[in-house]
């Protein structure tokens, strides 16, 4: 049941045919895991909390550094050197006191992922490295949990969503590993190449939108589609991520991938 205060608070969302009263209930019951609280995660988390998502499970092993502040502006100058998960949990509570937040200051790894990401309705990959991205993709596929991935570097933003139930040749749809079959990048991190705050914010906003559409069970949801946006030229492209029949994650191949 929604209270009068809920109707007021979520009135602009309720108006959308996609949401309605039942949508608010769905969001409230949703349990979302968010891996990484950098430029992407520090934007996705408050959007989901504000939209009324009931439970957020946050993962990040880093503390806040001065170089984070230009794009991770929910953290304040006085928060430098504090663990990101602790500060984010505190900030989210000021956005929505009723939110349930589980904050874990640990790196998600192959050893702990099954434990840390159990009983979850959606995984959001806001990490900053290829190894974690591949790990989350593989886990999401095996656990049959939808995955929203986003990334940014320089003036480039990318975003996409995957679901093992909508993956395969019959859907012309593959997984993250089909798109990028690599476990690490030689270069190209925000540390080495730089990034402009709003560019990573753009990717985070796209992720938050995909996440809400998935939780609201949008019938128009398009899985396995890469959105790429070059904010220097304004050029955007949507690419269908077809399945690689050699993919060790989604095509049932047992190759050396680990």
């Amino acid at each position: 049941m929604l209270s009068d205060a809920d109707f007021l608070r979520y009135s602009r969302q309720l108006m959308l045919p996609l949401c309605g009263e039942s949508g608010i209930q769905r969001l409230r019951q949703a349990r979302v895991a968010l891996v990484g609280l950098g430029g992407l995660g520090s934007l996705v988390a408050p959007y989901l909390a504000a939209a009324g998502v009931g439970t957020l499970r946050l993962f990040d092993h880093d503390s806040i550094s001065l170089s984070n502040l230009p794009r991770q502006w929910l953290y304040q100058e006085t928060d430098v050197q504090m663990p990101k998960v602790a500060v984010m949990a505190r900030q989210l509570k000021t956005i929505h006191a009723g939110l349930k937040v589980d904050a874990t200051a640990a790196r998600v790894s192959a050893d702990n992922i099954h434990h840390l990401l159990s009983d979850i309705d959606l995984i959001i990959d806001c990490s900053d490295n290829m190894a974690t991205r591949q790990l989350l993709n593989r886990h999401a596929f095996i656990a049959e949990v939808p995955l929203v991935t986003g990334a940014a570097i320089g003036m480039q933003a990318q975003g996409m969503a995957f679901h093992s139930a909508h993956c395969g040749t019959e859907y012309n749809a593959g997984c993250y590993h089909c798109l990028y079959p690599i476990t690490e990048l030689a270069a190209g991190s925000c540390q080495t190449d730089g990034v402009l705050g709003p560019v990573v914010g753009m990717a985070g906003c796209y992720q938050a939108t995909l996440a809400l559409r998935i939780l609201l069970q949008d019938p128009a949801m398009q899985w396995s589609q890469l959105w790429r946006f070059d904010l220097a030229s304004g050029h955007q492209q949507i690419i269908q991520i077809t399945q690689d029949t050699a993919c060790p994650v989604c095509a049932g191949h047992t190759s050396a991938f680990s």
Partner: protein
Amino acid sequence: MFIYINQHAIACGSDDTLAKVIRAYCDDHQLHFDEVAVAHNDSLVPRSQWAQQRIVAEQRFSLFSAVAGG
């Protein structure tokens, strides 16, 4: 014959594979061959197909690098 990658005309031989053309493009543009993805008609061409796929004159591909920053 010519094909196009990101609007650049590329001269190539009729028995060139897509893998060969992509590798040459990456070398010319200082891109990491292992880290790029390629699409044709807004649809991903999976990497495992590159070595077998023969190119056809006037084909247009978009090529872009993996992004992992966050």
